[in-house]
């Protein structure tokens, strides 16, 4: 108990108020994140509605297999993050550390897959600004698709990277015994952030990988 009264900062009257304020603050931050990604989703929506055919053609150059695998990997990481929060709530220090480690591994795997995908696209000549050599059909709007694809997955990947940093910090703190069943708010908040990262990908996957699989199979 001494532990958590130490964690109470002076501006708050009690821990409940403090915890409430923290989660509430995190949720507000996540709404700003929604709108942050939202600007890009808006671009996507507009251009896809204007150039559906080009988007379909472009989409089929992405690897469905790896897209699907990375989706699964992220969902797994979300699950293990949820378990970490559960362990936090029940005050199991070692479990927290273990689940966080698993989450971080999944996150790293996700990044690795994404990097290899980008590399593949680069070699195919589909990376606007670096190497874009696609000339069939409506090539300009295929390029538009890839500009957005790299911007959005890039922004998402940067969030994953930041997430890994946060989770590592949590891991270290947990290992040092900073948390208890009474005080595990930081873990919970990191969890919120991590699930949000997953959430964005839940939309990115169908919007980029599943546009026109029925048209040109392959």
């Amino acid at each position, binding site marked *: 108990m001494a532990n958590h009264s130490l964690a109470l900062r002076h*501006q708050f009257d009690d821990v409940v108020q403090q915890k409430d304020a923290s989660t509430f603050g995190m949720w507000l931050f996540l709404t700003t994140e929604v*709108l*942050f990604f939202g600007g*890009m989703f808006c671009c996507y929506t*507009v251009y896809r509605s204007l150039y559906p055919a080009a988007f379909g053609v472009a989409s089929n150059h992405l690897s469905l297999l790896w897209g699907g695998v990375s989706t699964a990997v992220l969902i797994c990481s979300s699950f293990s993050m949820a378990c970490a929060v559960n362990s936090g709530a029940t005050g199991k220090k070692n479990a927290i550390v273990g689940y966080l480690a698993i989450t971080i591994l999944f996150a790293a795997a996700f990044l690795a897959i994404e990097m290899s995908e980008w590399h593949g696209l680069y070699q195919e000549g589909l990376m606007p*600004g*670096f190497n874009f050599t696609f000339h069939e059909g409506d090539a300009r709007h295929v390029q538009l698709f890839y500009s957005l694809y790299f911007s959005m997955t890039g922004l998402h990947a940067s969030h994953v990277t930041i997430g890994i940093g946060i989770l590592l910090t949590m891991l270290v703190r947990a290992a040092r015994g900073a948390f208890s069943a009474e005080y595990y708010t930081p873990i919970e908040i990191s969890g919120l952030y991590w699930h949000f990262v997953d959430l964005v990908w839940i939309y990115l996957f169908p919007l980029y990988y599943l546009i026109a699989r029925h048209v040109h199979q392959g």
Partner: protein
Amino acid sequence: MITATVQTRDNYLTHEYGVKSWLLTQDHKRIALLYLAAISFFFFLGGVFATVIRVELLTPPGDLVSSQTYNKLFTLHGVIMIFLFMIPSIPATLGNFLVPMMIGAKDLAFPKINLLSWYIFMAGGALVMYAMLIGGVDTGWTFYTPFSTSYANSYVILTAVGIFITGFSSILTGLNFIVTIHRMRAPGLTWFRLPLFIWSMYATSIIQVLGTPVIAVTLLLVAVERGFHIGIFDPSLGGDPVLFQHLFWFYSHPAVYIMVLPGMGIVSEIVSVYSRKKVFGYRFVAFSSVAIAVLGFLVWGHHMFVSSQSVYASLVFSFLSFMVAVPSAIKVFNWTATLYKGSISYDTPMLYAFGFIGLFTIGGLTGTFLATLGFDVHVTDTYFVVAHFHYIMVGGTMMAYLGGLHYWWPKITGRMYPEAWAKLSALVVFLGFNLTFFPQFIMGYLGMPRRYHAYPPEFQIYHVLSTAGASVLAVGYLIPAIYFVWAMRYGKPAPDNPWGATGLEWQTTSPPPPENFEITPVVTHEAYDYSILEEMTVG
């Protein structure tokens, strides 16, 4: 700083000393002062740019500076005034200082984040300053594509990233306020007992939190498009430049309410105190703030009536623009009605409040002109628009800001400002302001386009008037700059409640102790209930 001989009680200014105690402080009051310093610097810098613009426009040909320089001047003037001065101005200084005090809290919910947001602001500001020093930027503060992404030959990326960064400071401030207002009100302080300044800060924060991320990502895309030559908005690469305008104004219209709502909050406080009356129609004034915040998000397309936006979209945006004018009208009328049968004193803050109400009315009414479809086609991108927004931002918000600074100056520094000088400068500002910007309405209707370095001679007469006004205005701003600095050291010591106000911030000492209140106050009255005053002054 203030010498201990005057301040016997421990206060936030004397609690600790040294540069480090300021740069690492987590006290919202000290952070407010850090912001005040930074923002004043940016205001004067923006003002210097304005001065050069006005001098250049004295004569029709572009003879003082080159075209390229002129374009950089108004761009930097706009960028600095909007992003580095006006958006953080009231929220980050007075808001930071007052929000916790007015609701009887010891600090904001997240003091560390508050300090962080100041550093983020400074980092963004530094980047913009750096871009300015190595050559500046010439896109206009609106960064329209494809000019900004593919044609401009200046430091667009640096500036855009700078603004992107300051955006986060704005978001964090807003977030902090929302959480604080929800979670940390003193016992008994229900929503409808809150001072109207809190309501308006709350509404402002909503806009900051929901709007700012969109401009952040938009400017990021501009930087990316420019940096890597990939098409997102550039039509020669398959993009749509009008989409950029949508995204830009999705934030930048609501942002004008970020700039005016806090001013409205200040005016509500001042009008009540100096007429010793409750604000007429408290609930209407309170709710209209929130209404403005929400409706303000629905009207951005009124900046795009001639941009090739579809006619139907323009129709919808025009209609909604009139809707958002209604809550502003409600406020103006309620303030005016508050004066009725009051006990009105003419202290400097009240003079500024009068100025605000009058000039905001003119600025707002001309705003509805602009929202009128056919009319806007003629005057968009002319000086009519320039006059409209300076009326609201300089005539409105600047006045409110100055009014607020005077009003809370005794609380902030523990010293009074010199009243006679202050009254004089209020008058000079009012006259100079109108002389500067009223002629711009006329020349705008005559067809004088904005962002023009050289112009046809028939407009000269109005430009001369405007420049003359600007010189008067500059003097009007210089006077307070001098006496505020003077008063920090030599002003009369201020009593705890010099104006006979009812807000919680006046029930503690001037300047307040580090934790604001000796004991957490308990609120039993509505805001602006001057009957409690007798008890207070006696006690």
